[in-house]
């Protein structure tokens, strides 16, 4: 047994909320990830045992969904949207700035284990505040290089308590006071490849 008693209790509780225990797989995996930060195979086996299912049934679910970590990530996780609406307002520049600040390419973890970051083509539902990113699941919108630097500094000072997401946050500026996009001069548009 590798899961804490409270995680096991949460899984038992979840199981009873659904007409079929299989439906409890996803919430159980979230509970595990919130405790351990990722999904080790032994923990998935333990979920299967608690729900009375085969380990393969739990693994099949874990591997389908992109938000379950199959490897341990850094202390904090950053997701930068580069889909169309964000790209129109400078998402590529945002991603480049983060890459330069953290010193590692998308999909990797900083040498000190502090940040794992990736750019994603999934629209995160923050197009109204583009360019945007999510840090430990929180929306950070209307990004500029200065805002990004401030956010990274703030987050690095926070502990990585997966259970206690969400940590205290700085509110986004209201949409009506849209700050200028990352590149002050020149048109950041979707035509970034040239």
């Amino acid at each position, binding site marked *: 047994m590798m899961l804490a008693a409270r995680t096991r209790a949460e899984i038992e509780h979840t199981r009873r909320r659904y007409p079929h225990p299989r439906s409890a797989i996803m919430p159980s995996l979230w509970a595990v990830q919130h405790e351990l930060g990722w999904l080790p195979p032994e923990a998935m086996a333990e979920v299967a045992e608690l729900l009375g299912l085969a380990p393969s049934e739990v693994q099949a679910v874990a591997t389908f969904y992109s938000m379950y970590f199959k490897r341990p990530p850094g202390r904090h996780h950053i997701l930068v949207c580069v889909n169309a609406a964000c790209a129109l307002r400078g998402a590529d520049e945002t991603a480049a700035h983060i890459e330069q600040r953290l010193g590692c390419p998308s999909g990797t973890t900083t040498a000190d284990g502090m940040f794992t970051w990736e750019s994603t083509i999934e629209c995160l539902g923050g197009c109204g505040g583009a360019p945007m990113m999510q840090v430990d699941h929180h929306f950070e919108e209307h990004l500029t290089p200065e805002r990004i630097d401030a956010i990274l500094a703030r987050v690095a000072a926070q502990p990585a308590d997966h259970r206690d997401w969400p940590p205290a946050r700085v509110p986004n500026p209201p949409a009506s006071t849209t700050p200028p996009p990352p590149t002050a001069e020149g048109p950041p548009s979707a*035509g970034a490849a040239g």
Partner: protein
Amino acid sequence: MAEYKLLTKDIGVEGLQTLPVYERRGGYQALRAALRDRTPDEIVEQVKISGLRGRGGAGFPTGTKWSFLPRDVFPRYLCINADESEPGCFKDRYLIDENPHQLIEGIVIAAYALQVKHAFLYIRGEYHDQRLLLERCVEEARAAGYIGERILGSDFGCDVIVHGGAGAYICGEETALIDSLEGFRGQPRLKPPFPAVKGLYGKPTVVNNVETLSNLPHILSRGGEWFKAIGTERSTGTRVWCCSGHIERPGCYEMELGRPIRELFEEHCGGMWRGRSLKAFQPGGGSMQVLLPDHLDLPLDMDAVMRAGSSLGAGAMMFMDETTCLVNVSMRLVDFYHHESCGKCAPCREGTYFESQLMHRLEAGVATLDELDTLKDICANMDGKCFCPLGDTATWFVMSAYRHFRHEFEAHCGAGGCPVAREHRPLPAGAAR
């Protein structure tokens, strides 16, 4: 025409996310009156009269969908679709963030009308804070007697279960949502049987969007006839428009259906940023076809936009200025569908792969003119031939952009780079070209 704000009317009121403030604004009165004065069938009838059409993308009449449930088969289930992952859409997140109890009231009204004892709210994994907020609001509503056994002293009882997704666009498709909720890899199922007949756990099931259900307290408190008078004959009510891209004020704006797109664009969005001009826009979300500046005079009416060759879909509006490369935008949208293809059927799984490879070659300026024919060929072999609409829609934007901006696609061929970026993003002085 009067200016109508329904769903967003109270947004901005301090503390609206808490029960006491929502109640003070008249919240849960529609549910109270429904349970006291109306039978479930009468509510279905009011929703039919209202003409409300689904806000999740397909625009199917809600009352009609509800009446497809076979009589006397129980249990039945209600699934609330808060998976919102369509590129360009963020209205459901806005409605949850700003007015969560309005949604919960709508859910319980629908559950009563459909005689459902378990409502499952499926929210995308990325909306983590929104999930926590909804869980808190459900508990608040339960403590006040709006959820649980014998709601407000009636014989009706219902539970609302918030279920978090984990990053899969396809789980917004109703049968994939059901698959995911049952604890499988979320892949679409063959229809028929439709969920109304055989849905969650094999039982009759209704899947409705967040915005659709948020309309119910308003319809029930003022009546279907009143609601029907808002908007146009076949597109009734208002919609919350998700405006993004090169506009002065991106954000969510509620507007009555039937008004011109131009009004949304100019008055709410503040027009183009930096004094630039509009090149094209995409209504409906990442799946939908591109429209041109002339189309700004179209009404916000589902059928009118459909006749113009696109769709109002899930209520997005992405505006692009003159510096935008349509090949680049197409490439990103194609990449999205490639990333999100669930892998169940070959035309979508393989087609989006080839489409994406080709779009990257094109944007990099290394594709040949012949490859544009290949692109058309790939898309023709996907559209209408995939298991679910994901694969079909993976071709719509790129094909419409190709039709309207053919010269731009052709100019990329063999250009050794993106010609649009080259024109609009001059290299710094002294740099080699």
